[in-house]
Each structure stands twice: as C-alpha cells, then as structure tokens.
C-alpha cells in the first residue's frame, strides 16, 4: 500500500491508484472537469495538474499512479498559474450565459474561477459560435457553446448505459458534442449525463428554467420508484420538491440512477396530493379533519368486526410503505382486530420479476421485501387471488404513491365497488378513489422516517426531508391514533416528529 504526501498530509492508497484517487479519498480540494470516479480516465481538461517533487513538469493527477514516497502539492505557484491559464482557455469561447443558464450556482467553471481565476480576460476576438438549445431526446437539452468537451457524457453512454448515442464530432475548436441526427439520446439512464456535465451544456428538460439552485436545499432519501432502492438526494424549498439526483452507494446504485426515479418527487408535491380527508356518503363529498376520519375509521373497523366477525374486514397493502408502518398496521389488524385478511397488491404481476441487469426492476415498489418480511412474521401469504370482495364489509387500502406505475388502479377501484366501506389511505389524489367512502391523506416517503428493504435484501434507513401536507399521517401514526386514546396519541405522535 504505497504512501504519499499530499499538501503536507500523509495518505495511504491501494496499489495502482492515481493521485486523483488519493485526493478524492482524502477529500482534499483539487480542480477537475473530465475525471469522474465512475468513468474511465480521459485526461483532457488538464485542470488537475499537480507539482510532484523531483519532477520538473507538472503532471495530471488523474492519470499518474501514486508511487511510494511521492510528495505532491497542488498549492504551489506553478500549479496555480497552470490552473489559471487552463481555466482561461476553457472560458475564451464559453458564452456568457450565466444569467439564463440552469447550471449557475453549481457550475464547475464558476467554482474554479472563484478559486483560481479572478483575472482580466484578454480574449478580444469573436467567440466560436455553435448550436444552442438542441433537443437531444426526451429528457435532455444540449447547448454546444457551453460544452467544455470534457467527454464525460460520451464516456457515460459508451461505458455505463452502453447505448452509444453520444459522440464528439469534428475536431479542434469546431468540436461539438451531439447525437447522430436519427438516433436521439433515448435510454433509461439518460438524465445521468445532466448530473455529470460540469457546466450547463446538458440540462434536464424537466428542471430547465424552473428554479435557481441557490434557492434550493437538499435532503437524502431512498428512491421509492422500484425495489432497487437507489440512494438519492432531493432538491426542495418551501414551494415544494424540484428534482432528484443520485447519491453514491457502492453496494446499491454506484453513482447512477434511472430516469424513472427522477419523477418520484412529482407525486409528493402539493398539486398531486390529497390535502384533506374526505368522506363520501351517498354521493355527497365532505372534507373532514384527518384525526376525526381516522377515529371514525377505527370505530367502524371495531364495530364491523364485532358485528360480522374478523373476516369481514380486509387490508390491501402495496410495497410502498416502510417496515415500521407495516409492523404497526399489520399488528393492529392481526392482534387487535384478529383479522388475517391482508392482501399484497403488486403493480404488475407479469413484469414484477423483471430486471434490466443494471438498476431498473419490474417491481415498482421500494419495500416489497419489507412487506413480505412483515407478513411472514405473522404467517400470512397475502395472495391477491384470496381477496373476495363479496365477503368483505370494510376494506382498507394502503395505496401507491405513484399511480403511473400501477396501471390497474381504476380496475381495482371498480372491483371494490361492491364492498360497503372502502377506505383509501393515499398520499396522492386520484379520482378513481372518489367512488369509495373514505380517503385519508397519508405521508409520502419524503415526509417520514423509515426503513426500506431493497431487492438485494439490504435494509436502508432514511429520514424525513419535508412536510408538504400537514394533515397527512404516516401509517404508524394512524395506528397509534386508533388503537390508543385519541388525544393522548395525537400529542405523542406530534412529539415524535
């Protein structure tokens, strides 16, 4: 394990690792554009030059292996001068788009200009003109003038998505990133190129022009789009959630996430949510306080069981909720109501076991494994075919957050029509539920603490990030509210948040 010194600090690395990896390991600051830990080394931006004692020429950190005893610095005048000039070269043809560029505030050029630049530009000749606002495909827009030709996006489509849509055409300062005309950037991982683009050359169609990044905060979470459980961070402010980006996790998703996962913030925002509990009696819809609705639901369940027996109440669960929620609600049904009528609603039974070999799975639920575990613990199989609407008087349904991946919602809702009381516990507003008697707003994944178990069996904890619908409750809170004295539990639930 070779040891070297970086800016006076000693660090030990794996044999064969580069100086850049050593910097990265130490979280020591170094300028770079084209290097990325998840892609091959290109060595083209020339920003990461370092001074190695005994070496008259500066070397690029990303392609120089660490040799035992190396003394490395990126703080010498020589390095600063090289970095300044290399940055200058990057900027001479770069358009002054900052006022309209999404990347402003998280731009590699701005960042390193503040660190190494701050010079008076001497370039007086006309800048190279190239194509702007090019529609690259369903998810990405390209501005070739802003592009600094770091080639990260090309390496991504060659090495990671392996779809080969992107290339760098022509040569010299006429070089342009792009796709071949008839083959757009259209793969299931395309938005990753927006993340890895250091500048505003590649922007997301979804996020474009919607918010300035300095008005956004981020919280970490686990994607609820499928059972892979990619680690993500979500940008938000008081107006809602704006976008989803991947967080590195060696075991689960590496540096990447899929395009479907980018959409998971949409059902969380207020415009898609059920804001208040509703009751529908004989066609008349009334909004009620959640606490009241929950209490009434509890009483209805208790009285139905008393009158018609435990088999007259049923519970439908999707794999969208946390381990903690499943334990609470299943325990309530099995122990308190003595009912074993619990059913597992899968999004698409035929595609359920599909896996594309990278990150996308057909099981569009983050916690199917957790649900199975909780059902196994009480010896219930939960097969859908065992659900007989004719025998039920009350059905509680813990609905999916993202109905897009549950194509049979309407059919299911229609199928429950014969049941006298259907209660939808749902984060999102869906007109298909309006036929039912009760709709109670529950928290989305972003609004609660919890644990998901992914397809690999890995339990991943996440924390609450925001509170969008104040009247929403988690299933844990719901159970607390109906299984203990109402006022007392409400206070306790609030305290726990």
């Amino acid at each position, binding site marked *: 394990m070779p040891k070297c010194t970086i800016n006076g600090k000693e660090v030990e690395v794996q044999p064969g690792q580069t100086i850049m990896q050593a910097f990265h390991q130490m979280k020591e600051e170094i300028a770079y554009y084209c290097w990325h830990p998840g892609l091959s080394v290109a*060595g*083209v931006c020339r920003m990461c030059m370092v001074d190695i004692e005994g070496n008259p*020429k*500066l070397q690029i950190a990303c392609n120089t292996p660490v040799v035992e005893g190396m003394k490395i610095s990126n703080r010498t005048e020589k390095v600063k001068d*090289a970095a300044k000039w290399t940055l200058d*070269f990057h900027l001479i043809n770069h358009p002054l788009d900052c006022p309209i560029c999404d990347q402003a505030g998280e731009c590699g050029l701005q960042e390193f200009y503040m660190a190494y630049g701050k010079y008076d530009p001497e370039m007086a000749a006309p800048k190279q003109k190239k194509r702007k606002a090019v529609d690259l495909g369903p998810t990405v827009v390209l501005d070739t003038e802003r592009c600094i030709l770091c080639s990260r996006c090309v390496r991504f489509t060659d090495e990671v998505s392996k779809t080969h849509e992107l290339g760098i055409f022509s040569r*010299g*300062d006429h070089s342009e990133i792009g796709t071949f005309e008839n083959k757009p950037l259209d793969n299931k991982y395309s938005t990753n190129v927006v993340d890895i683009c250091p500048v505003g050359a590649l922007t997301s169609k979804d996020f474009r022009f919607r918010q300035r990044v300095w008005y956004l905060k981020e919280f970490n979470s686990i994607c609820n789009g499928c059972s892979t459980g990619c680690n993500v961070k979500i940008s938000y402010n008081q107006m809602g959630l704006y976008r989803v980006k991947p967080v590195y996790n060696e075991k689960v998703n590496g540096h990447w996430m899929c395009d479907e996962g980018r959409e998971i913030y949409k059902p969380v925002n207020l415009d898609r949510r059920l804001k208040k509990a509703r009751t529908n009696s004989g066609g008349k819809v009334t909004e009620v306080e959640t606490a009241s609705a929950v209490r009434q639901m509890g009483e209805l369940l208790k009285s139905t069981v008393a009158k018609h027996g435990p088999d007259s109440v049923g519970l439908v669960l999707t794999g969208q909720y946390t381990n903690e929620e499943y334990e609470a609600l299943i325990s309530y049904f099995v122990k308190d109501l003595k009912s074993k009528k619990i059913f597992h609603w899968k999004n698409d039974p035929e595609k359920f076991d599909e896996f594309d070999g990278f990150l996308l799975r057909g099981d569009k639920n983050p916690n199917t494994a957790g649900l199975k575990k909780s059902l196994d613990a009480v010896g219930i199989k939960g097969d859908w075919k065992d659900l007989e609407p004719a025998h039920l008087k009350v059905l509680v349904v813990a609905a999916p957050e993202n109905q897009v991946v549950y194509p049979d919602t309407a059919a299911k809702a229609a199928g429950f029509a014969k049941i006298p009381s259907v209660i939808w516990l749902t984060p999102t507003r869906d007109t298909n539920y309006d036929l039912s008697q009760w709709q109670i707003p529950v928290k989305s994944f972003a609004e609660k603490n919890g644990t998901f178990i992914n397809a690999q069996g890995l339990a991943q904890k996440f924390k609450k990030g925001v509170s969008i619908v104040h009247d929403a409750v988690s299933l844990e809170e719901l159970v607390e509210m109906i299984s203990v004295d109402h006022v007392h539990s409400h206070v306790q639930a609030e305290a726990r948040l």
Partner: protein
Amino acid sequence: MEVKILTEHYDKDEYVTLKGYQKNGGYEIIKKALKMKPEEIIQLVKDSGLRGRGGAGFPTGMKWSFLPKNNEPRYLLCNADEGEPGTYKDRLMMERAPHQLIEGMVISAHAVQSKKSYIYIRGEYTYPYKVVEKAIREAYDAGFLGKNILGTGFDHDMDIYRGAGAYICGEETGMISSLEGLKGQPKLKPPFPAVQGYLRKPTIVNNVETLACVTYIVKDGPQVFRKNGTEKSPGTKLFSISGDLQKPGNYEVALGISLMDMIQMAGGLKPGRKLKAVIPGGSSAPVLTAEEAQKAKMDFDSLAAMGTMLGSGAVIVIDDSQCMVDILSVIMSFYHHESCGQCTPCREGTGWLDKVVRGIVSGQGRVQDIDLIETVAKNMMGRTICALSDAAAMPAISFVTKFRDEFEFFVREKKSKVKGDYKIKGLSDAQVHH
C-alpha cells in the same frame, strides 16, 4: 555534398519493382538479418546511435528496448503519415523504393519480434499508396513476407492502411488511435506504446526513413554507419528543402553539415534576393534569422542548442520578399485546423493564436496583441496530452520575438512592412484563413 546511401539507386526507374530492387543489391541483407538473433540486431541499432528520422529524434535502439520481456504479440507500425509542412522525403522513398522500406521493416520486425506490421500512410498519398501496396504483394509472392520467410521460421504479415486527412495522425498514439478505427486522437502516456500501444499490445512506431536505415546498419555495421554525421547524430539523413531556392528537392546528406552549405547545395537563393529566415525542421521548429542561419549546423543537438530543432529535416528557406507576419498566419491557421480538440489548452489556444494573428494581418491588430501571442503560446506549452500544442506555440514565440519589427509595423500601419497593402485576388480575408 550529397551522400547517397539510401538514395543511391533512386534515379533508376526499375528500383521500384522487386526485380529491379534485387538487381541493385536489395533483399540480400534480409537473408543475413533473419539468421541473426533479435537481440543482436537491437544491439547493432543501439550501437549505431540511429535516431528517429520522423521528427522527435529519439534513439531507435532505446525505443526498441522498452518492449516488455514477455510473450505478448507485438506490432510494428511504420509512420508514413508525413504531415509536417515542408516534409516530403518519405513520399520519395515510397514512390521510388518501396522495397527498401519493406526490407527494413521485415528486419526490424525480426528484431522486435513482431509478427504483424502496418504501414500507416496519409490518405492524400494515393499514388505512393498504390506503389507500396503493389510492392507488398510482390514481396509476398517472392516469399519475403508471409509464413516461414526464406525458410528461417520467421512469420511476418504486413498490411497498409490509409489515413484520411489529419496531421495529428503523425503523432504515434494519434496514429494508433486512427489505425484502431477511432478518431486520430493521441492517447495518454503513460502507458507508452512500447508497453501498451495498438489494441493495448506492445507496439513500436517508427518513421519510414528510420526503418529503411536499419538494413544498412545490419549490412555494414554501426562503425560504417557512424562514418557519416556527428557523434550524437550519426548517419545520413534525407532533408526536404523548399522555399525561396533555385533547386528545391530531397537531398541525402551527412548529419552535421552547415545550413548555408545545404542552401548552396539546393541552388542558393533566387537572383537579387537576400536571405531573411530559415525554418530548419518543419513548421513546428522555431524560425532562425539569417544571422543565426549562418552559424547553424544540421544535426539534432546543434539545433537544439540554438533553441530550435532538426525535426523532420524539412528546411524552408525564406527570402526578403516574404512577409513574416503573413507566414506566421499561414502556420497558425494550419495548427488551428489540425488540433484534434481533445485537450483544452491546445484546442482553444490554437484557435486563439490564429484569431489574433489573423486580426493583425487584416489590419485590426492591437498593440497588446504581439505580447499576447507570446503569453498565450507560452501557456500552451507542456500542459497537453501531445506535442501539437507545443508545436503551435514554439513557432509563434520565435516569429514575434525575432521579427517583432514586422509585427509592430503591421499593427501600427495596418499593412505589411514588406508587401504593403496586399490582398489576394479572389480570396477574401475570411477565406484566406478558415
């Protein structure tokens, strides 16, 4: 003054055919060489002090010894891309003596234990390509290529591959990329081609002329080779001489002769003209003033000591009828066009230099532009994947330093000190450059 070792039989038309080549002594040394051990040949080449004839002047024997001592298949690549402006010597050899190249390659292949070689020839050389291709077929038919050459057990296959118009493919790893079917963009070093080159296998890249020399070193030994040239630049070299001369052409001379002798050999200047400047080693070599040219000796180290280089041996003679600002604009336009675009300092710097010089030539130069050229050029050097950036920067610095008066005149008076208010009829300013 001319020493005709390589070029001895170039005046004979028959030399281009296999029979004609053999009639004049060809394909004899190969018989001797293939019976020798590879290490023996490498040692001869090392002892001869042969330095690469393509431009870098790297000791050939040393390059060959960088190959790893394992069983990986090796490739020998002949660099026939010849794109350095001013250079046209390899074209001469390929058009007049393709078998000389082939024999040198087979002997070299045996030395580096390579079973497969490629000649990478620039796309524009369509005629030499046909000549060499035919010669390769003749060599196969005669048993000098293929399996068990001359019954020695040495197998070697040779093929020829056309480039498609990119100066950067003359850079050894740019050439390798091009041969692999990619854009001709140079690769990061390390790893060096001898360790990981073509398709990540050990690869030796040598210039056409270098490979041809090997035959003669094996023929008469290092001491005879060293009879010509200097201690550190032994042997003869083909120089492509062009420009404002009476008899431009390719001349084979001993390394180390004086530049003035060389100019005389090429017929001297045109009547009534005076020498102004000389580019001694292709467009990448810093220019010499007439005064400097008086003292210059044409070998690797003498020229390096003067702050320039021998390079490919392309000597361009410039007389007092030429405008140095104009010539620099041609050179900068060339590098701007040829930068592969991979690394930022070169991609943007070559464009910047071109624009600034173009600005001066079109009468819109500013006073600070002259220093700017020097500053930009200095900051393009030593920071890129390959040397094209340095190759663009060095001439720029030398022109504005040594002929500053012409640049200052142009900026001030908005016309050339030599040619006045000169416009090229039919070509607008924009069209003169890209």
